[in-house]
């Protein structure tokens, strides 16, 4: 699960100038022509250094979002009510870790190792989707995440799957296929609560109220405030604007929520009948920035879990790196 929009940083101008000196202008013309023709760029192909840098950043942060995103829901696996929900949730969270694996592999084709990426995650240098810095307080939160955050992620990922970098697009095609099942399981569990006992309905309404702002943040700052890189659009690294994706999401899911008799905590939320666009109150973008920079309710907790896994698994990884004798097949 991943939301884009705030992942493209402004490069250090001096460094960029230096790197661009090494970018052959003729090759650049050919590269841009290939993208314009709809061709995919593959790992061994020539690419400008800024394209490589932004893609590593994009795919790496997407990968981190998958493995960190597994945590808020993962804490509910052991508490999931009943066999059906428990099995579905384990399978779902397992898929998310699997997506992380696919994406780290895709990013590695650009020249950064998985270890380096994990190290940057742990040091705070590399970010992940902001939405996972909020706590999953109740079982209803799991259903809201599984339904609405997965839905939001699909909007983003379907767009990215049409991008220009071959390995990332192929990983995303598979990921989108699995995410559509996640959405179904989230929707099913959400409906069960929304049509359940008064206590279950209250639980899901409470979860919606708490998750609405993080969901509105999910696609990133409004287009008017975000520094648009035309280059990244031209290179098909960034595939859709934040506001367009947010609108697409609202259009598809707000009516579904309202149909269930549930409310959303924004009295300005409505569709403009003339423009067909959704109107809403601006979420608190200062809070968004604060959470990205480590000030959210769960930033520390999420990274602490990953640090535990890294520290306690170190002996295993060390042993795998230096086997005294290699085995090539399991001993049956």
């Amino acid at each position: 699960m991943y939301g884009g929009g705030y992942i493209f940083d402004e490069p250090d101008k001096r460094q960029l100038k230096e790197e661009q000196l090494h970018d052959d202008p003729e090759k650049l013309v050919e590269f841009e022509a290939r993208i314009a023709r709809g061709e995919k760029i593959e790992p061994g192909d020539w690419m400008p250094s800024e394209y490589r840098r932004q893609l590593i950043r994009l795919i790496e942060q997407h990968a981190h979002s998958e493995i960190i995103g597994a945590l808020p829901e993962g804490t509910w696996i052991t508490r999931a009510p009943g066999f059906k929900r428990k099995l579905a949730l384990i399978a779902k969270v397992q898929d998310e870790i699997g997506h992380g694996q696919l994406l780290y592999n895709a990013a590695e084709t650009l020249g950064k190792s998985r270890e380096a990426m994990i190290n940057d995650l742990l040091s705070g240098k590399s970010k992940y989707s902001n939405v996972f810095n909020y706590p999953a307080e109740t079982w209803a939160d799991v259903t809201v995440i599984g339904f609405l955050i997965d839905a939001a992620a699909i909007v983003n990922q379907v767009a990215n799957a049409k991008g220009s970098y071959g390995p990332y697009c192929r990983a995303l095609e598979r990921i989108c296929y699995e995410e559509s099942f996640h959405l179904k399981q989230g929707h099913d569990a959400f409906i069960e609560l929304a049509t359940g006992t008064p206590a279950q309905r209250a639980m899901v309404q409470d979860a919606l109220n708490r998750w609405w702002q993080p969901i509105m943040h999910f696609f990133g700052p409004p287009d008017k405030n975000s520094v648009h890189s035309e280059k990244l659009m031209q290179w098909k690294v960034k595939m859709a604007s934040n506001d367009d994706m947010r609108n697409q999401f609202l259009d598809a899911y707000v009516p579904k929520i309202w149909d269930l008799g549930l409310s959303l905590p924004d009295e300005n939320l409505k569709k403009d009948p003339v423009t067909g666009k959704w109107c809403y109150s601006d979420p608190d973008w200062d809070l968004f920035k604060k959470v990205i920079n480590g000030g959210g309710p769960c930033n520390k907790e999420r990274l602490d879990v990953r640090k535990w896994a890294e520290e306690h698994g170190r002996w295993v990884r060390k042993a795998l790196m230096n086997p005294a004798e290699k085995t090539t097949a399991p001993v049956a």
Partner: protein
Amino acid sequence: MTRNEAISQMLTAMADDALIQGHRNSEWTGLGPIMEEDIAFSSMAQDKIGHAWALYRILHENLGGTEPDRFAFLRGEKDYRCCHLVEMPNGEYDFSLVRHFLFDHAEAVRWEHLQQSTFEPLALTARKLKGEIKYHTLHANAWITQLCRAGEESYARMQSALNVCFPLALGIFEPSPEAETLLVNEKIYAGEATLKEQWLDRTYNILSVAGLNLPSEGSVTPAYGGRKGYHTEYLQPLLDEMGYVFRLDPEAVW
């Protein structure tokens, strides 16, 4: 004790083992030493919990037992029949891996025998599960062998985890004389002593290849009690957690 009571007792023990082991496996989600192991333990968790569910359904549908969700999520601690091995917290990866190795080989031996059970629902399930458990033992064998050959630290960790797990694992085969006699006579299963011998043979062979010493059975005290409802201090908190949402309203559909 009637035939059906004896079968129910055996199935409850098997299902509770699978459920609690599955629960422990699922706790590795997000915490594995490498992502591939995270995925492997999640996958085995699904299989184990699925096996438990299949057995609870047999209890419910063929033997007049309680509906599976209620049976699994609402019983009191004393009514569980799992062995102590599966109750233990995950600890480090070494403990979890060796437990998985010992437990899954025991499962493999048991389910292979049950393919010939005269209790048809169980024999059918056994044939269905065979394929899944094969991958669990392959996974455990590969990792045990690999880590034992990968230097001093990981070898030492494997051996000490084995020393801790072995007496606990003997608890899988805790005898229940009255039910066993009945079940063996009815050819419903082979009896704990027979299964244990085969399990020792198999695990011994793999551990020898890996250079590990299986402690001798006589030198340790088997961790018995689970089959009679006496549990470690770790089971109650696990059950509290597992039933947390379900108990909010057991009559509701979740």
